[in-house]
């Protein structure tokens, strides 16, 4: 039995909402006892009677809303609270700032907002398809951020969208740019001439931030969701987006970001790209993909290469993937870190907030460290001793905030990894932009410093390597976040792929560093 509490100070919400909340709480799996009451002393007595008066509840005042859940397990209690939090957030809405009567349904919202042309849907997956369907019926394009939407629903929605020439971006679409407007978790990037179609949100973020760093900009970026290029969905939205970008006068070069689809689907996508007659770059993150160029179509295997090839394409230059942006500095740092390695097995521990970044790291590390030596929780992972974890994976985020927003889980994992004597390198990603945490670097920097100190105290060096996905214009500021990490002793590289390579150079056999950096390490 575990009891968990949520407190909302000075929280005003009408009884109808609170009743709905109480109902929702009681329905949770494994939930035994709940209370959703204002924190008056009389109610605290009620909670005490029910064994629900936790310390947090005791600290509440009469105008604070207290929610307490007792459930069979911690995960179930936290899941119930997370659902309650979601309900409270979704309802509280911007009415508190606007004082205007707010719509309770999508239909009434569309009636109220003249000229509404996009619905951004992020309600729980079980209900998201219905909302998306309503929006499409009303002639709105849809960005479907929600995941856990059934495949049949995705297929039906994309069919419905196709009938009217509407976008159905997703499911599980975290990032998009339409008409220069960043949608979902997105970085501040300039408007420009490069159009993108992406099956992954953080993948898109890595590419556009690198484009921005090189002075390029985004015309439009359409998210299609992780399953669009599967055989079942047949790249429906990808092909639609390509048609649109092909005809868009503001788009001069097209980038597609995804995982290798079924061969038939891949052939369709490449054929469509060729037919459009614009230079194109295709980033396929997966095993067994051969990079190369054929006509106006360039295939690459990392997100960084996608950006580099696109920039070169815009400037009419041939393009070579680079291994490290600053090989001399890399050589120096690798030498230092290898020299400080302890006697253990020398393992890489990747702790990632972005799933695609984790996957890219795995793909970079495997050929360098040895097939089957990189374990973790990604599909197709190997055994060990190295490990790459996607901390935003479903099984790790039940009842908890996603690591892009809340660093608690990552900090725990950093501490755990630091205690393992084999850990030689920590590999991390820090993602900035609208919607992300206000100070992601600051959230993990103390734990990283502590990890290095712990290792030193036990006679071994611990290197921390990472990258920051962001731009100078992002709310968190790329320079400030980078500086924060560097002050904590982190070697910050310009891209996720380079950071993974750096980790391999430090932890791998000497031949890895020799191959990538030349000379002896």
């Amino acid at each position, binding site marked *: 039995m575990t009891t968990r509490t949520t407190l909302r100070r000075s929280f005003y919400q009408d*009884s109808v909402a609170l009743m709905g909340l109480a109902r929702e709480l009681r329905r949770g799996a494994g939930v035994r006892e709940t209370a959703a009451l204002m924190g008056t*002393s009389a109610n605290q007595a009620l909670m005490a009677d029910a064994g629900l008066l936790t310390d947090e509840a005791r600290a509440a005042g*009469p105008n604070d809303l207290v929610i307490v859940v007792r459930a069979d397990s911690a995960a179930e209690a936290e899941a119930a609270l997370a659902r309650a939090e979601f309900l409270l957030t979704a309802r509280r809405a911007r009415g508190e700032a*606007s004082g205007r009567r707010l719509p309770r349904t999508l239909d009434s919202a569309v009636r109220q907002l003249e000229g509404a042309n996009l619905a951004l849907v992020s309600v729980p997956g079980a209900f998201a398809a219905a909302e998306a369907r309503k929006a499409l019926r009303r002639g709105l394009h849809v960005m479907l951020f929600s995941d856990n939407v059934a495949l049949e629903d995705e297929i039906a929605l994309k069919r419905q969208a196709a009938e009217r020439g509407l976008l159905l971006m997703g499911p599980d679409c975290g990032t998009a740019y339409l008409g220069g407007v960043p949608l979902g978790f997105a970085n501040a990037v300039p408007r420009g001439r490069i159009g993108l179609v992406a099956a992954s949100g953080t993948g898109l973020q890595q590419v556009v931030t690198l484009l921005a760093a090189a002075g390029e900009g985004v015309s439009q970026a359409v998210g299609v969701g992780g399953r669009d290029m599967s055989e079942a969905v047949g790249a429906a939205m990808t092909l639609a987006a390509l048609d649109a970008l092909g005809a868009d006068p503001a788009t001069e070069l097209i980038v597609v970001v995804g995982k290798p689809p079924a061969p038939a689907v891949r052939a369709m996508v490449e054929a469509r790209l060729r037919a459009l007659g614009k230079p194109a770059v295709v980033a396929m993150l997966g095993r067994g993909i051969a990079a190369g160029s054929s006509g106006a179509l360039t295939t690459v295997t990392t997100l960084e290469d996608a950006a580099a090839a696109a920039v070169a394409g815009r400037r009419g230059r041939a393009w070579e993937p680079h291994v490290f942006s600053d090989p001399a500095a890399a050589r120096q740092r690798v030498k230092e870190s290898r020299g400080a390695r302890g006697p253990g097995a020398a393992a890489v521990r990747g702790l990632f907030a972005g799933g695609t970044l984790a996957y890219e790291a795995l793909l970079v590390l495997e050929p360098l460290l040895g097939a089957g030596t990189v374990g973790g929780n990604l599909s197709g992972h190997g055994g060990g001793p190295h490990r790459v974890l996607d901390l935003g994976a479903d099984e790790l985020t039940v009842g908890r905030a996603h690591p892009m927003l809340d660093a608690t889980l990552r900090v725990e994992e950093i501490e755990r990894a630091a205690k393992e004597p084999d850990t030689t390198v920590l590999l991390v990603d820090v993602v900035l932009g609208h919607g992300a945490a206000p100070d992601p670097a600051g959230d993990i920097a103390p734990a990283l410093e502590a990890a290095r100190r712990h290792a030193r105290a036990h006679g071994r060096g611990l290197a921390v390597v990472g990258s920051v996905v962001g731009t100078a214009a992002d709310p968190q500021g790329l320079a400030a976040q980078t500086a924060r990490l560097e002050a904590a002793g982190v070697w910050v590289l310009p891209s996720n792929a380079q950071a993974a390579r750096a980790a391999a150079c430090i932890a791998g056999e000497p031949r890895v560093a020799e191959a990538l950096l030349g000379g002896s390490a």
Partner: protein
Amino acid sequence: MIGTRLRVRALGAKLAARLETEPSLPDRPHSVFEHAVNFEAADGALLTLHGPGPLAAPFAIALESWNEDLRGGPRTLDLGGAARVDLAIRPARNGVTARLLLAAGLAEPRPEPCATGLGTPRARDARAALSRAIGVRDAADFIDAACGLIGLGEGLTPAGDDYLVGTLAILHRLAEGWPASGAVVRALTARAVDATTTVGAAFLRHAVAGQFSEPLRDLTMAKSPSAARAAAAALARMGATSGADTLAGMRAALAALETMPA
């Protein structure tokens, strides 16, 4: 500075008198709901603005139209065409008739379910103690029991507060002078300020002074059985369980008053 003028359709007579001299609203709302917005004046008094319809609180103001953006900005109330509604519950001239009318209005084959908080052992004890205190007209016991109900139960205005407001409505109508002595008023008001939400406290302070919402006032002062039944139905629809909790308090008080003091 004039600012936007909000046209008022109706408000309580006492509130109107106060606002005549100071008709401007604070810049920022205290809390915002789908159908109402609360403002807290400098002296801590709560004002609720809502659309046309019965005044949902003794401190409520019904506007002519409910599409105003009530974001910050100077705003004054235009009381020009407003109806001034008497929200006071006064002692009945004929107690017997009044009691019969209330019994007719409050009689329901299936009483509406009230908040589950009112069913807890703690609440049941307080309700029983309250009824006992009313039955024997013991002011001290009444204060004790009432204090046990203030802040108790679900809702932004806790169920216990709604229950007590219903009780006070009946007492003002049928138990002239009791318990509305200075001591009781002071005790309940002091308790309300500390022990319950801002909105709950506002309802209780007004109730102790004999001022109530329009549906509750209409029910308590009804002149005919059908008017009483209609008013009870309107009251039952208020809030999620607020109306039902208020009616529960009224029924209990009515029943308790049947007991003659020893």
